[in-house]
């Protein structure tokens, strides 16, 4: 019985921690982008305020599917959280496999997609169709990288892949397979929907895409979902390429570095058109990933 309470407590703690961390990272990103644009930008804790304000506001709903979508999105993402080792907290990452994490992320995006399209607003459907097309674009190189890593280390669990890079920082995958790390970095930006690949939530073209109808607590839940997704994807990248970490602090620090680099990288480029985005993903990242995979297999 105690074990269950401990487990539930652990469960809630991890969720709150990653939500807070995710929002902090989003605040830091807004700060960095402002600094690049030579302006002060909102305080770092601005996202917390936004979330608090949003949960205070009234909201409208378009029926059952609209609510169910938002809940499923957040629920799916929280569930995915527990299959990735965050520094020393290895949670259930022994059990699940990397491919499972990719597909669990798909639950969240499917939930969000269903909810927002349920609102009946065409801009939401256009946004979702762009998001799915782009997902096909960046998932392919990512899965080829995972294929190569799993084949190389003969284990598909995230914990196993992380342990394989133990020892000195020289045998991190970043240094063992630099090309693959670079491709994974570009794919990371695509996954998080940051600047060059954010045509799905383009505020000017399609009224911020899928979230066009979500105000109040729905927008708040989607913000929380976005924050946890950022943490998951960063954690995945750190575990696979930067050798994970002994304790949570170093792990957060590594995530921060990757996050800052990604934001800087992102804020320089204009937005891709959707088919150019797919073409880009399938031309360079996929090509390099396949070459790397062939190198590993033979």
């Amino acid at each position, binding site marked *: 019985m105690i074990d269950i309470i401990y487990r539930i407590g652990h469960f809630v703690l991890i969720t709150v921690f990653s939500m807070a961390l995710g929002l902090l990272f989003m605040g830091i990103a807004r700060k960095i982008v402002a600094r690049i644009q030579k302006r002060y930008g909102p305080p770092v804790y601005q996202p917390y305020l936004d979330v608090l304000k949003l949960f205070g506001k009234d909201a409208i709903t378009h029926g059952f599917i609209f609510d169910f979508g938002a809940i*499923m999105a957040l*629920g799916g993402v929280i569930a995915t959280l527990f299959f990735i080792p965050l520094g020393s907290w290895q949670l259930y990452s022994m059990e699940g496999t990397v491919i499972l994490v990719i597909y669990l992320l798909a639950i969240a995006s499917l939930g969000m997609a269903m909810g927002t399209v349920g609102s009946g607003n*065409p801009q939401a459907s256009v946004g979702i169709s762009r998001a799915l*097309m782009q997902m*096909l674009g960046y998932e392919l190189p990512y899965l080829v990288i995972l294929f190569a890593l799993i084949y190389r280390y003969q284990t598909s669990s995230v914990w196993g892949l992380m342990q394989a890079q133990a020892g000195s920082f020289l045998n991190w995958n970043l240094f063992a397979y630099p090309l693959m790390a670079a491709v994974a970095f570009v794919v990371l930006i695509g996954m998080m929907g940051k600047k060059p690949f954010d045509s799905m939530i383009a505020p000017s073209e399609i009224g911020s895409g899928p979230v066009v109808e979500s105000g109040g607590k729905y927008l708040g839940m989607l913000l929380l979902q976005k924050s946890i997704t950022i943490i998951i994807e960063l954690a995945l990248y750190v575990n696979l390429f930067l050798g994970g970490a002994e304790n949570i602090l170093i792990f957060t620090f590594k995530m921060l570095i990757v996050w800052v680099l990604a934001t800087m990288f992102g804020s320089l480029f204009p937005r891709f058109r959707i088919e150019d985005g797919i073409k880009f993903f399938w031309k360079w990242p996929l090509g390099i990933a396949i070459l790397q995979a062939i190198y590993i297999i033979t």
Partner: protein
Amino acid sequence: MLTNYIFIPIAAAFIAYILNKRNRKAGAVITALVSAYLLLSLTALYGRWDITQSFNLSLMGYKIDFLLAVNPLSWLFAVMTAAISILIALFSINSQENFKFSSVFNLNFLIIIGSMIGIVFARDFLTLFIFWELMTWTSFYLISAGKKKMAGRAAYRYIILSAGAAYAFLMAAIFIFQQTGSFAFDSAAEFLVANSPAQSIMLLLVISLPFIVKAGIFPLHIWVKDAHGNAPKEFSPFLSGMMLKIGIYGMIVVFYQLSFFKIIENTIAYRGLPLLSYLFALLGAVTIITGTILAIRQEDMKKLVAYSSISQMGYIIIGIAIATPLGFSGSMLHLMNHLIFKSTIFLALAAVIYRTGTTKMYEMGGLIFRMPLTFAAYLTAIIALAGIPPTNGFISKWVIYQALIEKGYLFLAIAAFFGSIASFMYVFKPLSTVFLGQLKPQHQNIKEVPLLMKIPMLILILVIVLFGVFPGIQMNIINQISGYLGIETVNYTLYSIQGANGAWNSLLIFNIFSAGFIIALLLFSFAKKSKLVGLLDTYSSGEYITDAESYHYAYQYYRPFDRLFDNLAAKSLTDFYETLTKNLVRSGEGLRRALAAGKLQNYALYSVLLFVILAAVGWII
């Protein structure tokens, strides 16, 4: 004893035909009863793999014996046929009210069930061929009973392809019969192994032709889209659920029972896999890619789901062709799961067609408000099809991935990844265009489908989730099959499967997923209660919209993505076959005009000419 599983449905077919003439629902009720009987008696048969039955016949001087036997593989297929036919029969009891050919439907449907069980129990080429022909013919009549003009053409193309392949099969079978003196599989297997590899490979390829056509593998898949797209709405689930699988059953028989793998053992190999089976795997991969790309483009939802069946069959072919224990059990798992979720999708779509009358996606929208259960069935099925964890679809795909990664087949893996990620796209398209989005005025007063159509959908939802959480149920029959076919088995428990480099525990994932869901639900209900607002009250930059039609994004849902593949899709394979038949017709016309132009004096001249030519020929020799 086995024959009554075959001849009861066929006999019931004629009764159903007569009764259905009087009362519309009788035929479907009889089909349901017969398939219920079949399912019960077949499940009772479980475990008794030693029942055989054979009767021989000296037919016009040939001594022929017809052998029937049960083995785990055929038992699984028979049970699957019976199960899916009950659901379809239940569904079609009142979905056929205004269906002109409903008595023809029940007649042919029962004969197909009987002949399919016959195919599956057959242990020699001739019985297999007879029931195969019977199935092909009755499904021809069934498909052409579908949508007016196109169904005829689709059935026509289907029958020519499968008949041509079936005749090639007959020729090869008779050739083997002449060499070995009997049609049985085992004597043929011995002969083929002993025979020179080149000839036996040729023979086996010709024998596998009808199975390739029926499984809709790449070069011969052109009939699948039209046949599934235009068949009557109750028959499409059976067509894409079960009929494609019989092709796979045939491939398994060719690969393992006729020892195709043993024969090609020593041929040149690529990464430890004989080139020929790698070729089959490549064919599977190409089927996945073409099926997916074409599925994304479709505007007619039944054609879209038909193409998705083609691409899902590609997975099964890859699984079987790479001939590893994981691969085989992965493909068998996927075979069962595909049957379950594909027939759920087709049943849900049939319910939608039953209510709205159209299959074009852009003519519908917002049906979730009127048909919630159909939406729930469709949602669970597409979650399974896309391979999202808590459902059974993910497990089979994951096992196939494990098999591919274990042996490091990169290109097959890329095709598999592409297929499953792109399946999110073509699976979400009907969901958003048909069920979500704006509810059209003409669909305002649509009601949910009657009870009898709800039951099959409910059962299938439960089965999807059940097998999603406890794959062990499926695994124990699959392991018996692998044992029977001589492949090592994969170890598993009730809710986890041991892959090559990582285990899979579905119960744990289900718990964590529900925990996450509860947290989100708490967060949601903690905040202020939201106000329900109508569908038309959406942000449209200030303008107030009144007609739902102009406000539903459905037509060409993935236009940017399709633009990348426009030229590939344009030169599809069907034109290749169309030009083939056109030249055939033109050659016939040319011959007729040249020779039989109706001028009498030519005819008289021909007889004299013949005499002169033959005399000259005779004189030279």
